[in-house]
C-alpha cells in the first residue's frame, strides 16, 4: 500500500539530493573555469610607457601593450584635415575625430581590426588615407574609424595619458 505522505517525502528527498548535487558540481566547477581567466602576472602587465619625443610628423610606431599592438601616429596637418572631413559623413560607427584623440596630432589606436582581430596595415594603405585590414578588407580612416568593409566598429582607442610632452603611458594601472 502506498502511503501518500511517504510518496511526498521521497519526492522531496530526491529533489533535495539532486539540487545539492547540481549546486555542488557547479561550485566545484568554478575553480576549474576560473583557472582559464588571465593569471596575476598577465594582469600585472597593465601599462606600457612610450617615448614619443622622437616621433616625427607623419611617422607611426607599433607598440606592444598587453601582447597586443598599439599604433601611435604623429599625424600631419593633412591627415588631421582628412579626419575632420569624415565628421560629416554618414559612418557605420559615428564618432567625431575630436572625441577620439587627446592631442589632435597624436592618434593612439588599438591596432586590432574590430572584425576578427587582425593587425591593420600601417597608415596610408587604406582608402581615406588610413589603415587597411589585410584579412577581410576593412578600411579605417585617419581617425581609425571604420569607413568600408565588414568590421562593425571603429578601431578602439585604448586608455592612455601623456605623462609629459615626451612620454605616453598606455593602459590603466590595476
Amino acid at each position, binding site marked *: 500500500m502506498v502511503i501518500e505522505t511517504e510518496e511526498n517525502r521521497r519526492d522531496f528527498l530526491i529533489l533535495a539530493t539532486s539540487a545539492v548535487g547540481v549546486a555542488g558540481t557547479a561550485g566545484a566547477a568554478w575553480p576549474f573555469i576560473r583557472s*582559464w581567466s588571465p593569471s596575476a602576472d598577465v594582469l600585472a602587465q597593465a601599462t606600457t610607457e612610450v617615448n614619443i619625443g622622437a616621433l616625427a610628423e607623419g611617422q607611426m610606431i607599433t607598440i606592444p601593450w598587453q*601582447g597586443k599592438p598599439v599604433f601611435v601616429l604623429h599625424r600631419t596637418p593633412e591627415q588631421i584635415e582628412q579626419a575632420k572631413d569624415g565628421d560629416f559623413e554618414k559612418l557605420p560607427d559615428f564618432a567625431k575625430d575630436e572625441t577620439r584623440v587627446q592631442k589632435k596630432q597624436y592618434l593612439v589606436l588599438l591596432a586590432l581590426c574590430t572584425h576578427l582581430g587582425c593587425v591593420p596595415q600601417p597608415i596610408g594603405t587604406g582608402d581615406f588615407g588610413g589603415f587597411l585590414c589585410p584579412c577581410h578588407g576593412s578600411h579605417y580612416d585617419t581617425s581609425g574609424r571604420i569607413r568600408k568593409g565588414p568590421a562593425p566598429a571603429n578601431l578602439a582607442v585604448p586608455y592612455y595619458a601623456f605623462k609629459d610632452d615626451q612620454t605616453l603611458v598606455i593602459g590603466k594601472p590595476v
Partner: protein
Amino acid sequence: MSKLMEWVDARLPITEMIKSQATEYPTPKNLNYWWNFGSLALFMLIVMIATGLFLAMHYKPDAKHAFDIVEHIMRDVNYGWLLRYLHANGATFFFIIIYVHILRGMYYGSYRAPREILWWIGVIIFFMMMGTGFLGYVLPWGQMSYWGAAVITNLITAVPVVGDELVVWVWGGFSVGDATLNRFYVLHFLLPLVIFALVIVHMWALHAVHSNNPTGIDIVDEEKDTLPFHPYFTIKDLYGMGVLLIIYCWFVFYAPNAFLEPDNYIPANPMQTPPHIVPEWYFLPFYAILRSIDFLGSFSKLAGVIAMVGAICVLFVLPFLDRSPVRSFRYRPLSKSLFWIFVANCIMLGWIGYNPADATAFDGALPLIILGRTGTAIYFGYFAMLFVVTAFNIEKPLPLPKSL
C-alpha cells in the same frame, strides 16, 4: 590454445563478439568502393593518434620554444621529420576521407531512418575533428598558427553581451599567448581520445541498424543479400587502404609541404599580420561562408558566425528535411542533380575562401564576394530544395529493385 579460449570465453565472450560483429557480421553484398571510407577514416584516426603521441614526447607547449621545438623535431629527433609530415599530411587525408564519407551518406540516404542517431554521432565527430584540426594547427606557433588562432578565437566576440569577456577567458590573457598555446595543446591531446570513444559509439549504432547500401533498400533475405564481413570486406577494405597509403605516402615523401602554408615557417609575431591569412584547406568552404555575410552592418559578424556554424548544424536536421519515400539518390533524378550542384558549389566556396576577401574574377568584372554570397545561398538552398522537392512530391522516384 582452445582450452585457454574456452576459459576466457566463459568469462568474457571474445570469440562470440569477434564472430558476430566482425568475421561473420552480415554485410550487404552490393557495397561499392564509397563504403571503404569509414574504415579508412578509422585507419587515419589511428595513424593520427599514434604519430601525435610520439610527437607529444618531443613537443613543448611554450610560446618561447614551440616554434624552435618543431624545427628540433624536424632536424634533430630521429625520424622526427617523418612523424611530423605523417601527422600534418594525415590531417589533410583524414579530412578528404571524412568529406567523401559524409557525401556518400548524403548521396545514398544513409542519414534516413533508422540511421538518424548514427548520422548525428558522425556529425558530432566531424565537429570535434574540425576543433582538433584547428587546435593542432596552432601548436607549431608560426605566423599562420598565431593569426589563424587570433581570427578564429575572435569569432567568440560575436557572442552578444558576454563575447568580449568570454574571449579573454579563452585566451587566458588579453591576446592569443602562452596561456592559450598551453590549453590548446592539452585540448588537442584530449579531443582525439573523445573522438575515439565516439567512433566506438558510432560503430555500435552502425551495428545496431546495419549498413545502408547503394540501392538504399532494406535487406529482405539475409541469406541472399549479405556476405560475411570476413573475408569479403576485409579484403576490399585492405585494397582501399593500399590505394590510400600510396597517395598519402607520395605526399609525405615527395611533396610534404604541398598542403602547408609557407608563412607558417615564420615564427609567430603578434605585432604583424601576414598580408593574406588562409585557414587550412579543409576549412575553406566554411571560411568563405563566414566572409560572405558582410552586408548587415554591425550585425554582419554575428550573422557570419551563425551562418558558418549553421552550415554544419544543418546536417543535424537533414534526416527530417528529406521526405522522399526512397533513400538512395540513384533512383531520385532531381535530388541527384541538386547533390552534384551542392558538391560543385562546395568546391567553388573553397576556392573563394582561398582567395583574398577583395579578390575579383574575370579581370575585375566579378567581385568574389558576390560569388561567395551566391555560393552561401546555394549551400543552404540545397537543404531547402531537398525538402521542397520531396515534401511536395515534385520528384518522381524511379522504380526500385525488388532486392539487392
